[in-house]
C-alpha cells in the first residue's frame, strides 16, 4: 500500500496545438487549444504519458448555427490513438432531454461516443491502461428538429485493460454535421 501527495499551484497556461503536426505532452495544469475550421475530424495532438493521465476536454462548435438543420443526430466522439476499434470496443450510457421527451439508452461503438450531432460538450477522460473511461459533465446538442437543443449526460468505457492509450486521439463529428468550426480545449488535470 502506498500514498504519495503533491501540492502545487497551477496557473492556466495555454498551449496552441492548432498547427501541431505531432503529439505534444501537456504538463499538469496546461490547457491545449485546438481551433478547427470547416472539418469533421480534428486530431488533438496530445501525447498521453505511459502511466495514464486525466484530462478535461471542452468541445465548442460555433458553426453552423443552432438553427442549422443537419438531419440525423448521429454520434460524435473521440477516437483514442487516432484509431477506430471493433464495433463493440466501447460501451456508452446516456440520458437526455430533447424538445419532446426525456429518455436514456445504452450502446456499443468503435470509438468513445460523447455527443450527438452538433454540440458543445464538457467531459472528463481517464487514460490509465488498466481502466480507461469517460464521464460527461454535459453536452448541448443541436442540429435537427428534436435537438434544439438537447441536453445529454453520458459515460463510456473502453472495454480493454491491455491496450496502451498513447495519443489522446481525434475528435470527430458525425457525417450529418457538415463541416463545422469551433475550438477544443484540453486541460490536463493529472
Amino acid at each position: 500500500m502506498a500514498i504519495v501527495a503533491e501540492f502545487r499551484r497551477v496557473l492556466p497556461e495555454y498551449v496552441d496545438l492548432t498547427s501541431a503536426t505531432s503529439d505534444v505532452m501537456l504538463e499538469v495544469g496546461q490547457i491545449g487549444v485546438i481551433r478547427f475550421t470547416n472539418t469533421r475530424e480534428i486530431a488533438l495532438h496530445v501525447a498521453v504519458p505511459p502511466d495514464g493521465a486525466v484530462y478535461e476536454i471542452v468541445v465548442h462548435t460555433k458553426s453552423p448555427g443552432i438553427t442549422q438543420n443537419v438531419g440525423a443526430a448521429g454520434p460524435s466522439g473521440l477516437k483514442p490513438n487516432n484509431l477506430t476499434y471493433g464495433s463493440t470496443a466501447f460501451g456508452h450510457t446516456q440520458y437526455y432531454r430533447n424538445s419532446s421527451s426525456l429518455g436514456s439508452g445504452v450502446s456499443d461503438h468503435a470509438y468513445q461516443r460523447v455527443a450527438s450531432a452538433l454540440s458543445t460538450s464538457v467531459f472528463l477522460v481517464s487514460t490509465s491502461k488498466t481502466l480507461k473511461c469517460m464521464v460527461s459533465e454535459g453536452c448541448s446538442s443541436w442540429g435537427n428538429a428534436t435537438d434544439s437543443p438537447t441536453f445529454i449526460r453520458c459515460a463510456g468505457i473502453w472495454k480493454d485493460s491491455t491496450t496502451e492509450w498513447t495519443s489522446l486521439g481525434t475528435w470527430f463529428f458525425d457525417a450529418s454535421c457538415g463541416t463545422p468550426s469551433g475550438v477544443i480545449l484540453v486541460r490536463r488535470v493529472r
Partner: protein
Amino acid sequence: MLCDPVLTSFDFLRVEPEDLKQLLPGEVLTITFSGERVVGVPVRLVDEGVYEVIVAMNQPSYGTSITGADQLLRISSETSFTNRVVWRSDAGSGAAVLNAGGHRFAYANGASRSIVFFNYPSMFVLNEHICHGPAADSRGTVVTIGSFANFTSEPSGLGEFGFVLTFHSGVDMSGTVTVRRIA
C-alpha cells in the same frame, strides 16, 4: 505558467489536524494511492470555498467484477449527507435518495468529479461519475448526484475539516485524487 510544486509526503491514515493544508484559489493537491480502502485528503476547507475533486481509479482493472458500493467522501463520521442520485445502466435508468455518512462520489470503480461548495454550516456537492464493476454496469453507468449536508456541530473546528475517501467495495483500490480550489 506553472509554479514550482511544493512536495509533501504524509501518512494519510494518521493525518493530524496540523497537517491540513489550506489551498489558495488555483492551487492543486494530487494524491496517488495504491491498494487502499481509505485515503485521507488533508485539505483544510475554507468557509465559502469552492473545490473540484476528481477521483480516477485504475485498479481493479477493467473487467474485474467488484461489489457495487457507496464510495464516500466523508468530512467527519458524524456528518449526515443527503444524496439525490440519477443513473442509466445496462439494466435501465433510475433515481434514488441516499442518506449516508458522506457525499457519494462514486459507486464501485471508475472516475468521478465533484464540485464542492462549502459554506458553513452547509455543504453542497454536484457530482458526475462513471460506475464499473457490477455486472449491470458493464458499459459504464452514467451517474449524476446532488448532495447536501448541514453540519449540526463543529466537531473539531471549522479550520480542521479535511476529506476522507472511503471505499466500500471490499477490495483495495488504486488511482489518483486531484483537489483544485476554484474559489
